[in-house]
């Protein structure tokens, strides 16, 4: 499907993309809580950083082996000069590993701009929300100091509309994929989300429009397609930047119909109200979007929402794609699994390394699971 090409081009070589984007300075982000709307409104190009999965040779002088591959991998890319197109980075406080990466990165001082966005760990109390609003204000001021220009309400409103458009489009694509699993390959979901996180946002939004048109046109053909995968899966985890894994599901006849991932719904869940004061509206969206395990919003919310999603989408199973050494997700797993068990939904846990692309053993485990559900 040629409409997908721009997304695959973007994700196949993000560094090349970074070097191509010259009309705007590029600010790297490392988390789905990074307030991209502010970065965008300030006139920068926000670009999510993913590990290029090269061997970690330089990063091992800064981070021990028991650090997750996302943190080690991105640091490696930076130290190796593969991110030299960056003007700066915005770090968001999430997990302990990211917290220290921020320090190491700041001390390295490789790029002109650096900002920490120290979000609250709680997302649900009035004082946390008030603090969050102040933190986002500070981020805005940091950006303004760097550009030397104020971020106007107009530019914020434009950014909000742009992000809403992208998020709405991605939600619609996920909905179509869930309804007609044969309409897209599993790995296309990853390509579309990841691409939207790194491409010029205007282009991403336009291309997503095209993808939707094309998918809508394709529906009649795939509706009763005999090749439609017959098992329905939901993926849960942090970053799941492994096209190979999506392919393994595809090969075993299982469709990914939903997810709870940083490279998925957690990035595009929740629209920003367009009829509110922009900063307040942005704060509200980040406080209310699908919560990540590094943040707290009650003891049951993640499990409730995963079980609901699985039920609503008629999922046959949930696959936990957990990155090795990722604490927040590892802590939540036993409870999430128990709640899925209670709801009669089968699950499989895979412990992955961002660097390893799914092979052998993994394939066998996945096949076994898919046949069992």
């Amino acid at each position: 499907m040629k409409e997908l090409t721009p997304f695959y081009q973007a994700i196949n070589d993000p560094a090349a993309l970074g070097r191509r984007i010259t009309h705007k300075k590029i600010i790297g982000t490392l988390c789905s809580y990074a307030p991209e709307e502010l970065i965008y409104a300030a006139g920068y190009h926000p670009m999510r950083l993913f590990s290029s999965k090269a061997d970690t040779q330089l990063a091992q002088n800064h981070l021990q082996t028991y650090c997750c591959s996302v943190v080690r991998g991105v640091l490696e890319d930076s130290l190796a000069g593969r991110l030299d197109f960056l003007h700066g980075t915005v770090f968001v406080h999430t997990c302990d590993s990211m917290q220290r990466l921020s320090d190491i990165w700041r001390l390295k001082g490789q790029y002109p701009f650096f900002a920490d966005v120290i979000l609250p760990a709680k997302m649900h109390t009035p004082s946390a929300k008030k603090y969050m609003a102040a933190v986002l204000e500070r981020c805005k001021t940091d950006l303004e100091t760097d550009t030397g220009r104020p971020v106007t309400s107009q530019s914020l409103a434009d950014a909000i509309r742009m992000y809403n458009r992208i998020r709405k489009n991605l939600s619609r694509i996920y909905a179509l994929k869930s309804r007609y699993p044969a309409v897209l390959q599993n790995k296309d979901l990853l390509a579309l989300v990841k691409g939207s996180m790194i491409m010029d946002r205007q282009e991403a939004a336009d291309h997503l429009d095209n993808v939707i048109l094309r998918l809508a046109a394709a529906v009649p053909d795939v509706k009763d397609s005999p090749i439609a995968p017959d098992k329905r899966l939901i993926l849960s985890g942090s970053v799941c930047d492994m096209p190979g894994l999506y392919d393994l599901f595809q090969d075993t006849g299982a469709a990914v119909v939903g997810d709870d991932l940083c490279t998925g719904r957690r990035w595009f869940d929740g629209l920003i109200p367009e009829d509110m004061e922009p900063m307040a509206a942005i704060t509200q969206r980040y406080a209310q979007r699908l919560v990540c395990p590094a943040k707290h919003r009650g003891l049951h919310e993640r499990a409730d929402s995963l079980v609901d999603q699985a039920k609503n989408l008629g999922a046959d199973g949930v696959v936990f794609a957990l990155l090795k050494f990722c604490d927040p997700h590892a802590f939540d797993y036993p409870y999430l699994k128990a709640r899925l068990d209670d709801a009669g939904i089968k699950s499989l846990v895979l412990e992955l390394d961002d660097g390893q692309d799914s092979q052998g053993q993994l394939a066998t485990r996945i096949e076994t699971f898919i046949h069992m559900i």
Partner: protein
Amino acid sequence: MTRTDDKENRKIAAAKKMRDIMTTYYLDALSASQNNRQVAWITSGGPVEPLVAMDIIPVYPENHGAMIGSSKMGEDLCSKAEEMGYSTDLCSYARADIGCAVVQGGPIGGLPKPDMLICCNNICGTVLKWYEVQARYYDVPLFILDTPVCHTGYFPETAAYVKAQITEYIGFLESVTGKKMDMDRMNQVGHLSLEGQKLWQQVLKTTAHKPSPMSAFDAFFFLALIVTLRGTRTAVDFYRELLTEMEDRITRNISIVPEEQYRLLWDNLPVWHRLKWLSQKFSDHKACLVADTYTSAWCGAIQYIDPENFLDSIAQAYTRIYLNIGIDQMADQILDMIAFYDVHGLVMHSNRSCKPYSFGQMDIMNIVRKKAGIPVLMLEADMVDPRSFSQSQIDTRIDAFMEIIQHKNRPHTRVGPQTDTGRKAGAR
């Protein structure tokens, strides 16, 4: 003097008293429900003073974790948690505690059931997840005191947020206990807490004396009171006694390590399951670990505490603790300690369990090498889980490290009995 006399002579007398106090404390905690008292589990870096003021017994899973580690029961309990689905890569305090809650094992047959949980995330993000797990398991209210990390500073919005939460915390305690906080009592506890911390600081500073009257291994042991009984008269009295004993040892020139020649600084949590072995190992090299970054964290924020305005001031004091700051500030504190304690080398425990403590250590190591010019040794281990401890490898590495230190330094000449603990060096 025979060898045994010598050993007896070097023993710290207060240790027995400390054991008794801790035993009483745990007995009280374990019989809390019979005595109609409530128990709160609280993180080691959390503000315990309001609990003390409200007569709630604070219990520290991390202190319990240290006991589990020391009694070498870590592997068993951690494995239990792993069977429950928790990854082996999670903090071993958390794993041991989660396992222990279910099997009621460990050295004291498990902790008393909590009536509430108080989690302050100033030490790590792990405690947030760990306390969520326990809040679900015990089905009790959880209060989270969220102390945003101060990478580069303490901002007005941070201050406002944490202060607001201190008020929420008091409200939480009042609603769980159904009692009003007595502010006079709170003030008394505040004063005692500060006094205890100051005494603890003085105790730690006595090791600037050459030879050192105690070592970091002793500090690891004596730490328990300032963690668990901070804000009580018991802690104040005990540390005053301990300080007197240390001062007396200085006057009599009694060192903890026989013929101390080398002085080292320790970074990160202790390796609880190998304390004895490590202590002997360094001692055999005539090296004393005179100080550490861990035990000093419980007196590191004294400068922010205002006893007249205690509750307001602890917002800052609990937010700006050692682990909740940027690694550049941590390196600065280490450099101050290196100067103050006049050490020959730094030993860093790269602790698989504790990511916020261990990540950034390599950068700190480079800063120390550059600015202080002393050798640094990094040992990979885990504070509670012995499975990642390779004794033979660590043995060799310590030998090699001590060889470098010996090479670099001729044995220093002893300074007389006078103490130089008064030397000002903002060591913390």
